[in-house]
């Protein structure tokens, strides 16, 4: 998944880290594409935030329209299939019974039922309260993105899916980076035994096919966002590890680190206060690469049945419904997700490119 890491690390003559960031920001501001991409990504993050806070897309589980209503603009392009309802099934059953011999209909009688009295009371109580109004769903044919097989608003689903997928992508990447950076730092900084052990660990993980790890991890954990994040982090930390190990190896021999050693800085301080800031720009690039990869990874995971549970939705979960829908001619859910995902991923990739250029110390 993460083969394409920028192994060709910058060989900077160690400028002060702040100036690199400032310089980077200046360069990024001049890069119109990069800036536009940044805005798009920011917009998505805002949307996702709104999703997490319940400000948008929180009604995605509500059945607001008839199943599989086409988007408003394409009202006449949807297939003209008649969707069955529960009432149809009930009516057909009634019909079936009456054509048979209604008088012969039997079942459990009151004396057979230990709960007979309670059932009668409960039914009476239920009848007293407001009659269950199964009102016809309000908007028909006015949904911007149409509705899914259960009559849920695809737009709401996409917003909620954006929230989930971004959360999964960002936190998965963050966690993977955390694992990779800590292990990589230990390995590169201390070398010797620690390095041997961690390198062994690394080669074991990279030698076992991703898919097996994935299937195995998913099998033990329950379904949910946390599981997806864990599974992703556990299978994609290796790229960062490799990168950080190389960087820490390189940097620990540099004068500034040796100087820190001379003034008595602890190992931890040297690793994380001195070296780490000098490699953060690489981590940033790595982070955005990973996020993009994980957002796409989630789609495949969901398709294989390892996605989020029924009370959550994600782009992957929505795409997993796509083959069945496409067969029936319901293309809009797939289109909506693909469009959204494509926009975000493209923006993210372009931002990554711009960041890489902006933060490359060699580019003048």
């Amino acid at each position, binding site marked *: 998944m993460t083969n394409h890491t920028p192994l060709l690390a910058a060989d900077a003559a160690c400028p002060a880290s702040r100036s690199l960031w400032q310089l980077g920001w200046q360069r990024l501001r001049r890069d119109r594409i990069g800036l536009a991409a940044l805005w798009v990504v920011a917009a998505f993050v805002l949307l996702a935030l709104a999703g997490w806070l319940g400000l948008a897309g929180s009604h995605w589980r509500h059945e607001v329209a008839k199943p599989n209503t086409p988007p408003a603009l394409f009202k006449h392009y949807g297939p003209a299939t008649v969707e069955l309802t529960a009432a149809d099934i009930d009516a057909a059953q009634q019909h079936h019974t009456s054509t048979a011999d209604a008088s012969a209909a039997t079942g459990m009688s009151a004396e057979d039922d230990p709960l007979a009295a309670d059932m009668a009371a409960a039914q009476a109580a239920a009848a007293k309260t407001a009659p269950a109004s199964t009102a016809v769903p309000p908007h028909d044919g006015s949904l911007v993105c149409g509705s899914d097989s259960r009559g849920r608003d695809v737009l709401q689903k996409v917003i909620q899916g954006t929230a989930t997928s971004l959360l999964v992508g960002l936190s998965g990447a963050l966690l993977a980076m955390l694992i990779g950076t800590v292990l990589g730092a230990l390995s590169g900084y201390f070398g010797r035994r620690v390095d041997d052990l961690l390198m062994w660990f690394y080669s074991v993980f990279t030698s076992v096919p991703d898919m097996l790890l994935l299937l195995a991890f998913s099998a033990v954990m329950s379904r949910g966002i946390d599981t997806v994040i864990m599974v992703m982090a556990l299978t994609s930390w290796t790229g960062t590890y490799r990168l950080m190990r190389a960087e820490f190896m390189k940097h620990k021999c540099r004068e500034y680190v040796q100087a820190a050693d001379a003034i008595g800085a602890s190992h931890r301080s040297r690793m994380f206060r001195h070296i780490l800031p000098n490699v953060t720009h690489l981590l940033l690039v790595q982070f955005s690469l990973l996020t993009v990869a994980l957002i796409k990874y989630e789609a495949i995971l969901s398709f294989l049945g390892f996605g989020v549970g029924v009370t959550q939705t994600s782009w992957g979960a929505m795409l997993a419904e796509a083959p069945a829908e496409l*067969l029936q001619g319901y293309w809009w859910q797939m289109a909506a997700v693909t469009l959204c995902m494509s926009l975000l991923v493209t923006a993210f990739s372009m931002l990554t490119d711009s960041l890489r250029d902006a933060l490359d110390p060699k580019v003048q």
Partner: protein
Amino acid sequence: MMKKRMLVAAITALFTMAAQAADMNKVLRVAFNVPETGFDPAKVSDTYSGAIIENVFDPLVSYDYLARPAKVIPNTTVALPAVSADGRVYTFKLKPGIYFAADPVFKGQKRELTAADYAYAIKRHLDPTINSPWSFLVDGRFVGADTLVKAAGKGALNYDSPVEGIKALDKYTLQLTLTEGNYNFLQILAMPAFGAVAREAIEAYASNTNAKPVGTGPYTLKEWKPGSKIVLEANPNFRKLVLNGQTLPKVGRVEVSIIEEEQPLWLAFINKQLDISGIPQAALQEALVIDPKNPLNVKLQPKYAKQGIQLERKKDLEVTYQFFNMQDPVVGGSAKEKIALRRAIAMAFPRSETIAAIRRGQAVPMNYVIPEGVAGHNPAFKGAVKYDPAAANALLDRFGYKVGANGLRTLPDGKPLSIEMATGTSGIEKQWNEYWQQAFDSLKIQLTFKYGKWNELNKANRQNKLQMWNLAWGADYPDGENFMQLLYSKNAGDANSASFRHAEYDRLFEASLKLQDGAERNRLYDAMNKIVVAQQPWIFGDTRIRSSLAHSYVKNFKLHPLLNTTWRYIDIQK
């Protein structure tokens, strides 16, 4: 119709020397959507392997292709067996001149089918080293077999030591003696698992009997790529079998592909890469015009009808149900408040909606433990509770399942209430789970899902670790006993997955075993169903109606309620 059938029977009974009827240039292309496992009748039990086994091996008796309801007819025997007055001794007379398919183990000799082959095949299901998945059908059934099994211990069965209950009297006569009368015995013997095998073939291929099926059936296994492709070829040694004046089988080669995804399966059929196919759930509405007034009244979409595609339908002999683990401290037990909890969950589940949305109307609600088409079914019995979430909530209120501060119900003693439902991970299971979530939400009961593969969940259930799980049971043979035993206490933890234990039910079940299908037994079954409805170990699901399609050039296309496949009857005229 009746006349024709008798004529058919008469002609089938006439045997002549085997004659190759099949046209080797005709290829029938079909697909399975689940990978098969192997073709040793005593080792596998999945439907897909069974479909192949059915075509390679010959059971003693089989089903009439055309008769409905399904009717057992002689297959390799001259007539149906003579049964002793007490219903325990069955004597079968084999047709002479039936030969196994040619195989190197026979060293070029023609190998005739004998009664000993059937005796051997049946004994294999008892062999402790084989672990037949069908052993539950034969265990304790034959006189003297238990001592033989015990003598074997963990080792192989001694096939040479005589068993009173499974005896070849002479070359063509097989005598089976049961420990007690059983009205379903012939239907059990009609299962593909009890087809004749040649002992020398089994022994020669001992290490890999799954890949080397040698039988007397209409087809032989030509090629097998596990999980991807199975090729059958007409068996030139097949006995003469005639239907409507045509010698069977007609098609020389059957190619089975394994296609697990719905989209390619359906598109492959539409694009004529397959000749016969079921309709995947997603394509049902694309393929069929379903009448909302009566969803079972369907016809092909005009675009497909125009192509001459043929539609055949059959109601599966199955029930689907969501069971509660009756031994579980939360959902199990027979106390009133436990029954109320189960009842409320059943009442909150929008079954008709799932039939409309998930089954696309292609199922009927289940109202009796025995499905339609199986002896003992009572169409007038309405066992399922009415969908009424409001009353369900009121019922829970009455029994003290109070709504707590967090908006979720607690147990009557104030402890938190959370129910776990076992489920697989497929897309269709997710669709069901959405409805279950909806049902539990409407009851304000917390629901969690336990995801797992089928074998893991089965293991967990046997260890009494599940609370709820959805299962389907398909008929092994079309008799009510096969279904009513699903709640018999002696099968608890096994076929009785709900671990339902009810003394009165057991008493009625044991009484029903002694009766033949008829009004008296039906009365007992009704009484048992009332117990099930009252105690609610199951939430009744539905019975599916399957649609199969064939292209216009496929002739004699017809589904059978019990036979897995009808390939031997099919012809292709392009």
